[in-house]
């Protein structure tokens, strides 16, 4: 049986999934990126290694997420794809009839409109990260509630208060204001859920025809409060797939499978024991002043990222460094 590895390295979480050729999940890991994507991937590989041993054969690797270029270079990816395509592929695999995918991650939120199994439209949040996972994280922390309990607490609300969801900064000051007036914590939290959903629908979902079946994916789908707020706002059922937080990774794995790779570039799970370092510098070659990152495995330069002109992609190129 062939096995494919999918990795989704986002701003908040790093998700790893190994799937078989039918798309069934052999192992799925949800890890915190905690500002260090390479370490997060290594931690994940370590867990896989201790469970399956390092002989586990991988027939293809797909990487997605905002650190996809970095991690793709580190692990030796066969396919590097954007999150929208990855999420759409995974959503369609889970439910071939899906017409709408709502995905809310750490820094991004997206809507993907699918008709007859083909992505026909999508949108992402523009310049603003209001209403994404990191904001919820921050607010939960401020109120002293573990993010895992956020949804359950919010669902206890009896009289949700109205919070301005247009902007993170305004939402926060609104929340503080309501809290100082003596509103209950759960009412504020559910009010926040409703505000985020309102903001999502009028910003990301603006002008989109949201038809069922609707899948809710991404880390924020763990939050039952947001799910219920969506159901109330849309008046229809929202399906949270069992592996909602791993959908990006699963999609990346499926894309690797689709690509029909003869021989994978995968560097193996042994990279956990290797010394992987990155060193950045500013290229003074022209006025663009690109920030270039050199990636070293065991002291050997394996990849370079960040150049606009492409000259640094040639690893032999090494003027006076």
């Amino acid at each position: 049986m062939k096995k494919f590895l999918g990795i989704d390295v986002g701003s908040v979480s790093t998700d790893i999934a190994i799937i078989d050729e039918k798309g069934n999940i052999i192992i799925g890991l949800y890890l915190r990126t905690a500002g260090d994507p390479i370490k997060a991937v290594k931690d994940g590989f370590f867990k896989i290694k201790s469970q399956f041993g390092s002989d586990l054969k991988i027939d293809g690797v797909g990487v997605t997420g905002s650190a996809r270029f970095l991690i793709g270079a580190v692990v030796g990816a066969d396919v590097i794809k954007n999150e929208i395509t990855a999420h759409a592929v995974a959503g369609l695999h889970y439910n071939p009839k899906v017409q709408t995918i709502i995905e809310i991650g750490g820094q991004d939120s997206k809507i993907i409109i699918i008709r007859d199994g083909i992505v026909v439209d999508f949108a992402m949040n523009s310049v603003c990260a209001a209403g994404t996972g990191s904001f919820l994280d921050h607010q939960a922390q401020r109120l002293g509630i573990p993010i895992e309990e956020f949804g359950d607490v919010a669902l206890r609300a009896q009289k949700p208060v109205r919070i301005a969801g247009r902007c993170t900064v305004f939402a926060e000051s609104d929340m503080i204001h309501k809290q100082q007036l003596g509103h209950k914590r759960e009412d504020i939290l559910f009010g926040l859920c409703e505000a985020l959903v309102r903001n999502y629908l009028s910003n990301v979902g603006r002008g989109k025809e949201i038809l069922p079946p609707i899948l809710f994916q991404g880390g924020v789908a763990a939050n039952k409060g947001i799910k219920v707020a969506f159901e109330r706002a849309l008046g229809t059922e929202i399906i949270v797939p069992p592996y909602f937080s791993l959908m990006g990774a699963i999609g990346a794995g499926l894309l690797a499978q689709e690509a029909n790779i003869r021989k994978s570039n995968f560097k193996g799970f042994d990279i956990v024991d290797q010394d992987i370092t990155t060193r950045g510098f500013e290229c003074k070659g022209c006025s663009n002043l690109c920030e270039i990152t050199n990636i070293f495995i065991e002291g050997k330069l394996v990849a370079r990222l960040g150049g606009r002109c492409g000259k640094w992609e040639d690893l032999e190129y090494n003027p006076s460094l």
Partner: protein
Amino acid sequence: MKIGIPRILLFYRYYPMWKAFFEALGLEVIPSSITNKEIVDLSIEKSVSEACIPIKLVYGHILDLKDKVDIIFLPRIVGLEYRTYMCPKFIGIPDMIRSVDLDIPPIIDPTIDKRNSLTGFFKGFFELGRFFTKNSLKILSAYMEGLKALKSYNEKLKREVTPLEILDGKNYEKDNFKIRIGIVGHCYEIYDEFISGGMIKILNRLGVKVLSMEMVDWKTILKEANVLPKKLFWTFGRELYGTARYFIRKSLVDGIIIVVAFGCGPDSLVRELIERDLTKPIDFPEITITVDEHSSELGLITRLEAFVDMLIRRK
């Protein structure tokens, strides 16, 4: 005498004309550098924070010219068409620059206004020429030189060559395109590679042939916008609407990308019009890219890649 021209706003539309005009009057023409980090940093430091990114960049480009030239050309373009206006910030930009103490060479800002008279364009150039010579004939012949240069520039553009290839010596891929995308946006957003994040290069790499308004006859574009029940006040808005309609109606492209600067009021409105009238009713693929100060290419690549994937899968 050296005259400096900031490489922003309508530079990519009129530079060949300005250059020919000034050179015919015996001036040496120096354009500012291609937008770089220093220009961006200076712009953000000196400009008003409410302005859109293209207007902010004017500050940096002016400062880039500071020690290189004797005089800076920054026209006050009020109107380019019968009874429509340019963006108010275009009208006010010379004053906005002067109001900040930048310690720069004098700014020369002729008013170019074609709203109410057919000769408004020439009048502006005549006023401009008078700064350098009293000889009216010389100004007239310089103006003719300018028009000639503009005509030949526009003809090159119509062969689907981008302004960047003509003016900045950039080299873009020519063939092997899988799909065609029309970019609906202003030349100062699309062709400033800092603002657009090198959008054209990224799209080319993804196998996309890019078309923009510059490659179509301007009057055709504006005529296209005449279907609106009420004439838009803004020339730029008419351009965006007309471009989108022309590309879609003539089936020139597989999808359109609308580029909007964060904080631009008129464009946010026109974008809505384009969606309601042109793309939504026929389910035509469209994506809006909002541009601002952020310099990470990643978010842009994600959106463009997903859009291109979608177009290819739809085909």
